């Protein structure tokens, strides 16, 4: 095995993650994805080694305390690394309520797009970044239940397909066999640098056959159930995570969004947010009036 060339140090949700890369190509791949999170070289709380498998040409992701993960190609390497790191972050930060969601900010308010894989979270996020929204994440919404704030997790925006409409991919998009990754430096917006108060949640469902996107109200109970269903570490919280979901849904404006044409969907999201921002409950969230659980 050749010598380790370089170490990549990340600061993610206050945790120091150190990745020892066997070669410059591996490091470049990880920098393209996590470049915005590069940070402190302090004592590592999570430590990885990423090396090449000599025979297969694939990769091996190693972390103390678990069996190494084998990845056949760069796309799988990013997928496995991301999955392992986020699970470990959930363990390291059990105080945060992790939601499988895209997160954007409009002005100083954070907005979550919650939906199953394939519902269009990343594609909608990519489009909304062209319409004045700031990027927090397209995958992970770490929420502080004490303050009502969401933390950024700004890895490269990851798409499964080339997006439709007037939102072309930048030149330095990273193409793997399974996914497209847009580095944060190539995004058309700025990136969130600190937590922002959660003001609204859109529960997203893609309806490609629909003529126009639609927003529908939903009850607090339904919002709580849907939010809980997308919580990643509910058991770390009171009431098996149900109380957290109920508290958030009680305080944050939530709607169902049936997306269609991307540009029309963005216009609808922006119009809905402007309307929601005038609600008293949203104003209270934005003013930091988030009662302790």
């Amino acid at each position, binding site marked *: 095995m050749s010598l380790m060339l370089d170490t990549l140090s990340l600061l993610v949700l206050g945790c120091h993650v150190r990745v020892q890369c066997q070669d410059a190509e591996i490091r470049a791949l990880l920098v393209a994805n996590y470049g915005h999170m590069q940070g402190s070289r302090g004592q590592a709380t999570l430590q990885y080694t990423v090396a090449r498998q000599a025979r297969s040409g694939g990769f091996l992701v190693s972390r103390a305390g678990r069996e190494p993960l084998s990845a056949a190609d760069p796309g799988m390497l990013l997928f496995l690394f991301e999955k392992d790191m986020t699970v470990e972050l959930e363990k390291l930060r059990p105080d945060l309520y992790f939601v499988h969601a895209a997160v954007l900010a409009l002005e100083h308010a954070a907005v979550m797009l919650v939906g199953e894989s394939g519902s269009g979270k990343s594609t909608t996020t990519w489009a909304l970044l062209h319409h004045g929204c700031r990027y927090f994440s397209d995958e992970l919404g770490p929420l502080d239940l004490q303050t009502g704030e969401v933390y950024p997790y700004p890895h490269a925006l990851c798409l499964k397909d080339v997006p439709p409409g007037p939102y072309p991919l930048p030149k330095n998009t990273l193409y793997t066999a399974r996914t497209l990754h847009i580095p944060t430096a190539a995004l058309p917006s700025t990136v969130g640098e600190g937590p922002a108060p959660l003001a609204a949640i859109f529960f997203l469902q893609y309806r490609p056959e629909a003529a126009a996107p639609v927003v529908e109200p939903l*009850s*607090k*109970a*339904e919002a*709580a*159930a849907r939010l*809980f*269903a997308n919580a990643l570490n509910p058991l770390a919280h009171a*009431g*098996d995570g*149900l*109380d957290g979901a*109920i508290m958030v*849904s*009680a305080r944050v404006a939530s709607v169902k969004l049936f997306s269609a044409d991307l540009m029309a969907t963005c216009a609808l999201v922006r119009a809905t947010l402007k309307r929601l921002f005038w609600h008293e409950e949203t104003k209270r969230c934005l003013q930091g009036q988030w009662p302790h659980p």
Partner: protein
Amino acid sequence: MNEPLDHPKRRVDVNVRMVDGEVVVLDRQSDLIHQLNHTASYIWGRCDGQSTVAEIANQLAAAFQVDADTAVQDVATTIRQLHSIGLLESLRNLPEGP
């Protein structure tokens, strides 16, 4: 012998919260979460293992001001749905007889 659906009884080993008059039920056994609408929540609240479907329907008719036939149908349908999603005690959960 009474069938469980004659005297429906809600499970007590699930995590239940009331949110704006609607019940949210977390069933850790099946790893599912359910949200019941107002009517279903009302019926769920009366599935105590003592009340019959007819008695629950009478209460529903009075509370929601619907006619008796509609109430019986609604309660029967809801009880079947609650049973099918595993939120009611079923025969396998009942103590065995002598």
